[in-house]
């Protein structure tokens, strides 16, 4: 693959899959916090 294609692949993967991973982690962290505040 040429350099331009590799750069765009990395950018796309980081933006989309990285973004998804971040917001999944954030949702998990918030639900953990809520559980700690309200254990019932």
């Amino acid at each position, binding site marked *: *693959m*040429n350099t*331009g*294609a*590799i*750069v*765009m*692949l990395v*950018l*796309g*993967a980081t*933006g*989309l*899959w990285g*973004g*998804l991973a971040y*917001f*999944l982690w*954030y*949702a998990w962290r*918030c*639900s953990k916090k809520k559980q700690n505040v309200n254990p019932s």
Partner: protein
Amino acid sequence: MAQVRDQWTGRAGFIMAAVGSAIGLGNIWRYPYVAYENGGGAFLIPYFFALLTAGIPILLLEYALGHGHKGSSPLAYRRLSKKWEWLGWWQALIAFLISTYYMVILAWALSYTWFSFGTQWGGDTEKFFFDQYLGVTDSFWNFGGLQMNVVIPLLLVWIFVYFVMRQQAHKGIERLSRIIMPILIVMMIIITIRGVTLDGATVGLNALLTPDFGALIHPEVWVAAYGQVFFSLSVGFATMITYASYLKKDEDLSNSGLIAALSNSGFEFMAALGVFGALGFLAAQSGVDVQGVVASGVGLAFVVFPQIINELPWLNSMFGVLFFGSLVFAGLTSVVSIVEPAISAIRDKLGTTRTAAVNWICGSSFVISFLYATKGGINYLDLIDHFLNSYGLLVGAVLMTIAVAWTSRKVRDLQSHINRVSDVHIGSWWVICISVVTPLVLFIMTGMNIWEELQAPYGDMPYSGILIMGYGSLLLALIAAVIFHHMEWKANMEPVQFNEKEGA
């Protein structure tokens, strides 16, 4: 008697159902071609821009409408402002009409999953699909009778969808999505790994990803990006309004929306790698460049992919089953989501049981779907799909933003509602996008579609067909929407104002 509203088991169930709705056939057969045709790797720039300024904002708007007003789309709009109830019906009816032919495409994909065993389509895949499988007639108005090759899988798909829809949302749609979505993602990962490791895949990946930044000065490229994001996210169908109305009172909206949007986009980005890897392989085998084999939509799935499967060195049938099976799975979770808005709307308006509403909606859609199972069916499908998407969905979405931001002026209320229940708070950028950017872009897209329509008849189809089936389907939806708007609310679900509910 007051109805008990369907409810998801929790946030994960809602996200699964929303992602299942968004990930459909277009992710696999539309995005790769649109990206390739509009700047290759550089397309990611307008794509991200469109996702942030239109896709995610409009998705959150629909979540807020459904969750804040706790109703199907007509009820949600009525609670926004009485005069906009018809728009909720319009969106639900456009989705209903789309479901009538979407089921037939699922039937084709089911047939091809079976044909994959032993690559039953033979060497000439185009002739097989159009002449043998569909038996396409030579003129538009020659219906040619029912094509049994299509009718049988169509019946099978309908039986399955009917039994899913009869269940309450958390038992039917949610359970289906929870089972199918992980399998679909695994299938697509396998397809992608196989696609990018084939001989010649690099040529296809270079064609898809090499950036042509010069293309970004063309407005069509930006419009294509907005169009891809809009059609891919299942917005404008009233689906997300309906799905969000099944959420519990304090369930998160914004982070769920971001997860759903990025799952959808991440999936289509991955699918594009697999598709273009496989196209590069086919180009290498055929001794042509990628331009010579690239296609989108029905042509990509049912003509080009069978060619690719024929050329594979080993496990041809297994790859075929994976590819067409993934189309069936992606389509199933999407089709249930475009039938649901009309079912939910009928239940809210007439106070009927879920079973009765499902019988009416699925029954009507079932009968209409046989139009596309005739030998001339693919022509009607192509024409009606064009009109419902180009005008039905777009106009509905433009009016939705106008209704919220300009006539009812409830956009700040909806923003407050999202922020009250959500982990990720949204700022004024969302208000600006919903009030200005999104309606402007959607308006331009609609204008461009109308301009193209005036240049030449769509697909060289006869004007009689365009008038009767194209404009006719839109007119039918409009008349039905107005009739439903004026019907009496029989259920005990009196409209309340958004702010009153907030304080409740």
